[in-house]
Structures are given as structure tokens and as C-alpha cells.
């Protein structure tokens, strides 16, 4: 029916812009010329999307270590040399690819998991219980969400720098800030919480935790209360309801929140870049940064491209596998404020 009204206009341009875009109503068969026109448009958009992707894939499969002199968007050769080199010896630093991978994985996995585990009970309390100070405490949790992650990094950097283990010599070990070497003796610092994966992980949890609480609360709000009320009538107490009913129902969202944390912190760059100094602690994101910009002059572009694809792969795979869950999981928090 809609097609009839738009067919009234003789001008093809007007008809194109007046076409039925509403979904399944009427006009199941598009006229061929319109179909072709639309295909042209969608193909153009597809080309826009594929341009950088094809560019980087082509670069990564190239065996040329020189910088690209002309634009190539389709691989002329499939050489895995760049990948092999990156896996074998990612940067000039004495650190292996496996170490970088382990560091990235430990940080993102640990932070994602810790945030979910610590957040879930608080999210439940905010979602279900009525208690004094509820509003105040909720604001306290969500205020840090407003703060960009960088906002807390100065005090975290300084405070964590306090926690050091120093070897004072003569078999004496000092644990700052609790014990220190005898005055006058400058010990050799063997461990600095700030300069360790543990410290960075803790600092990252500071950013991840409020988000996890918010995200999980939004989901728990959508679980109907009737189930819990029924269980309460059957004599279950609050803890049993939480562990036996709420947690099993929330498992999908717990997983999604975990993976959101994992994806987000897989790419975390600012805090590790600020905190860590030992190449053995570096992450994949830091290595990727070392391969670009002012540092890029010494690094062949094919190796940079291979590295970019390696860093992107886990996130892309998780995202594609969980796409539907992630989109609904992200919006779950928005359903109810």
C-alpha cells in the first residue's frame, strides 16, 4: 500500500527518498532498479567498513619489511613471516610474546572476575533490600563511575608506591610502609606494588567495580520478584534465596559482565603504561603502542599489522560469539535507573 502512494510521484529521486523503509509492510519485491541502487549504497558502506580491515590484513600477510609505497587492499601473497616474527620476538625489549599474552590475560581475566565477584552481593542489596542510607550509599558507588578512569590514577600511583619490599642487606628485609631499613641504609627495592601486575590489577578493579555493580543491579532489577516471594513463603531465608534462586538466574548476566570487563581491560593501556616500568610486565596493548607513532620508525609495518590483528582477535571472537548477550547485557542497566 505504501508503494502505491510513493509510486504516485513520477520523479525517481523523489520516489527513492519516499520509499518504504518501515520494515515488513507491503512491497516485498523491490523494483529491480531500486534494488540495484540500494545495493550500490550498501556496497559502498561495506567498502567503507572493509577499507581499514583489508588494509591491515594485506599488510600483515606481506613479507615486505619496508613501509608500503602504494595502496594495496588485497593480499598479493600470504606470508606468515610477520606473524612468526611477532610471536618470536615482539619488540626490541627482552620479553617474549607468551609473557605479554600472559600479562594481558592475567590482568583482564583477573580484573573482570574480581569485579563481578565483589560486586554481585552489593548489586543484589541495592536491587532488593530497603534500608537506611540506601540512596546515599548508591550515590557513593556510582559517583566514581562519573570519574574518567584516569581521574584516580594519580593518588593510586602515589599510594601504591608506598608499598615496597626492600633488601637492606645482611639478610634484613624491610616491608614499607610498615617497617623500614635502619636509618642511613638505603635498601635495594625488590618489589614495588605500583610497579607490579598486582598493583595495576588492583588499580583497574577500582574502575571496574562500580560499573559491575551498576550493570548487575540493572539486570537484577529485571528478575521478577514473584520467584523470591514464593521461596520466602516456602520458608527460605534471604541467603538461601540469594544463592539458590538469584545467582542461578543471574549467571548469564554475570558471564556477560565478566566478559565486558575482560574486553574492556584487555585493551587497558593508561594504567599499565603509567605504573609499569619492567619490560617483563608489559601487556599486548603497551607493545602495540610501542609499535606506532613516534616509535614506529624502526618497526616494519607488516609486523605492526600482524600485532594489531593478534591484539584484536580475542576481543573480536568473544564479541562475535556473545554479540546478542552483550548488547542486551549492556542495555539491561538502562532499563531501570
Amino acid at each position, binding site marked *: 500500500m505504501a508503494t502505491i502512494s510513493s509510486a504516485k510521484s513520477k520523479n525517481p529521486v523523489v520516489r527513492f527518498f519516499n520509499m518504504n523503509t518501515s520494515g515488513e509492510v507491503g512491497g516485498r519485491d523491490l523494483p529491480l532498479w531500486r534494488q540495484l541502487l540500494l545495493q550500490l549504497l550498501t556496497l559502498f558502506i561495506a567498502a567503507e567498513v572493509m577499507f581499514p580491515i583489508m588494509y591491515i590484513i594485506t599488510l600483515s600477510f606481506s613479507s615486505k619489511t619496508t613501509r608500503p609505497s602504494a595502496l594495496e587492499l588485497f593480499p598479493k601473497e600470504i606470508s606468515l613471516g610477520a606473524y612468526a616474527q611477532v610471536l618470536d620476538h615482539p619488540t626490541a625489549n627482552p620479553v617474549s610474546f607468551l609473557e605479554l599474552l600472559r600479562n594481558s590475560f592475567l590482568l583482564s581475566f583477573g580484573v573482570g572476575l574480581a569485579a563481578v565477584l565483589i560486586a554481585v552481593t552489593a548489586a543484589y542489596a541495592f536491587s532488593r*533490600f530497603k*534500608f537506611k542510607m540506601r540512596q546515599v*550509599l548508591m550515590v557513593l558507588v556510582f559517583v566514581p563511575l562519573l*570519574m574518567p578512569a584516569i581521574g584516580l590514577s594519580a593518588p593510586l600511583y602515589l599510594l601504591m608506591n608506598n608499598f615496597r619490599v626492600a633488601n637492606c642487606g645482611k639478610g634484613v628485609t624491610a616491608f614499607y610502609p610498615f617497617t623500614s631499613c635502619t636509618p642511613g641504609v638505603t635498601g635495594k627495592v625488590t618489589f614495588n606494588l605500583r610497579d607490579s601486575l598486582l598493583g595495576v590489577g588492583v588499580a583497574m578493579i*577500582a574502575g571496574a567495580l562500580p560499573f559491575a555493580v551498576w550493570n548487575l543491579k540493572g539486570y537484577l532489577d529485571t528478575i521478577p520478584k514473584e520467584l523470591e516471594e514464593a521461596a520466602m513463603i516456602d520458608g527460605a531465608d534471604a541467603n538461601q534465596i540469594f544463592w539458590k534462586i538469584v545467582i542461578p538466574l543471574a549467571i548469564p548476566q554475570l558471564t556477560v559482565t565478566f566478559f565486558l570487563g575482560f574486553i574492556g581491560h584487555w585493551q587497558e593501556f593508561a594504567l599499565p603504561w603509567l605504573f609499569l616500568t619492567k619490560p617483563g610486565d608489559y601487556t599486548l596493548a603497551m607493545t602495540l603502542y610501542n*609499535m*606506532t607513532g613516534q616509535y614506529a620508525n624502526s618497526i616494519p609495518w607488516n609486523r605492526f599489522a600482524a600485532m594489531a590483528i593478534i591484539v584484536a582477535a580475542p576481543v573480536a571472537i568473544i564479541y*562475535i560469539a556473545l554479540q546478542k548477550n552483550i*548488547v542486551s547485557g549492556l542495555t539491561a542497566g538502562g532499563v531501570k535507573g
Partner: protein
Amino acid sequence: MATTTMDLARTGKQARLRRAVLPYMYLLPAFAVMAVITFYPLIYQVIISFTDFQTKDLLLQLRSPKLNAVGFQNYIDIFTAGLPVQNFEFFRILTYNLWWAITNVMVHVPAGVLIAVLLNIPGLWAKKIYRALYVLPVVVPPIVVATVWRNIFDEQYGAMNQFLTSVAHLLGQVGPVHIRWLTDYAAPISWLLPNGPLTLAYYAMMIANFWLGWPFMTLVATGALQSIPKDLYEAASIDGASPSQQFWNITVPLLRPAMVPAAIYGFTLSFNLFNFVYFMTGGGPARSTEILVTFAFDLIRNLRLYGVAAAFAVIVFFVALTLFLITNRLTRATESYTEA
């Protein structure tokens, strides 16, 4: 008899007490952790924002004999460009940051909606393939996107100049195109942002972030489009509404509840887009693409002015709070709009 009723009363009291304490038990893990790694650092941040904390104080911190209380000097220095930092003016960076976030959303949302509507046209061939392709940018981590685009905009070997060269060849030009995308300081359209240059790097970043940004909006809009009841369109077309009338009077208002939060999410994301900006230009050239978070980072990592950095973070917090209150208003307003 008396004892049993007293027992009952006591257990009742205990139960009530337990019920009163229970919520706080559930809150305890999160709040214990946050007290140590969030609230205490926040307070510490405010304290050192009133000092001249620098590398010299790193070991002894607040007990450092060299640490001076400077009152509001850090805050004044930030607002009056009194910092020992080149090319830093707070209000220029704030304006640029707002401009950057707003222009991004203004481009991403309409593009995302239009492409979603395009993909929703019944009978379009290969719809599923396009949907799968178009979601790819959402899937690639932004740090990778930024590094790849940084190389694309490389002035000597980058794909963008090579692409423009081949286009220019088609048009009869001979020489290679040599645009200094990320390093040229001149502003192509000088009147666009009165208190600062919008360098070519800004446009390059807009292009790169456009690639990154619209697919997410398309994703959200597609979901919302599919939840619009089809009979609305049927009824409208029976009443003689043209497709464009249907678009403006049915599709747009019904997309609004989904798109306003998405736009606000996109706005906050772009406003604090640290990784992307840092990887692509590092805020350059001459801090012309610097946003608040990248400058905050620079204050800590390179300039090592911890006291100033703390004051800056406090200011950024109030900027974020103001923006949150405004955007919250906006969502509320649209909420009541949809309910009305």
C-alpha cells in the same frame, strides 16, 4: 509459658535485627574494597591537590619535608594557564573536548539510524551479510582501530594519501598527494571553533572515529526498529500517510527512547576517549587535539606534577558531574515525552 513467649519475643527481635543488618552484610565486600582503592584515594587526591606534590615527594609523600601547602594555587594555575606547560589553556581544551564529543555524536547517530533503516528495507538482497559486515567495527578494540588509522594517516606511507593520490591520478593530477594529516597545525576552517585551532588532525580523527562510531548506533537502532509494531505503519498507510511522513511521525519518535540513551552513552564515551586520542595523535599537534583525560595523563606520566594532576582530576570530576546532571535531565525529559 512465660519463658516461651519471651523466647519468641527475643527470636523475633533477633530476626528483625538480622534483617536490618543483612543489607549491609551484602554491601560489605564491595564497600570494603572501594573504601581502600576508591574512597581513600579520592580523599588523598583532594588533599594533595592543595600541595605542590612532585617527584621529590614521592618517597615520603605527605611526610616529606619539602612538601608545601599551596592553597588553591594549583586550581588558579590551571584556570589561568599558569602551569609550566606549553600550549595549555584549560578553557580551550574544555571547549575542544565538548566540541569533539558533540560533533562525533551528531554524525554517528543520524548515520547509524539511516543505515539501520536502509538495512530494514524489506526485500533487500544480502541483508544478513551486510548486517554481519557492518558490525565489524564494533568488534575491533579501539586501540587497534586508532593505531591502524594512525598508520593510514601517515603522511608519507599512509593509505589515505596513497588513496587520494590514485584518485588524483584519475582526475589527471600527476604528483603524489602529500597531506600532513596528523602534524599540520593550520586550521582548514578557521572560524569553526573560535578559541582554538581545529587542525587537520581533528578531521582525521573524526573520520577514524566515524568508522568506529556509527556501527554501534546502527546496532542499537536496528534493535529498536524491529520492536516497532508493524500495524502502526499499516494503519498509517491506510490513513494515507506517505512513507516519509511515516518515517518522521512513526519511526523517529519511536526510535527516540532507544537512541537518546545511546547518544548520551556515545557522548560520554567520546568525551573520555582516552585510548583512541592517545594512540592516534597523543593530543598533538601542539595540544590541538588534546582532551581533558589525555592532558590529565600527561600531567602525571610526563610532567610528573602530581599536585597539579590531582587538582586537574578534581576539576575534571566536576565537569563530568555537570555533564551527567545535564544528560540526566535530557533522558528524563525524553522519558516523560514517550510516556505522554
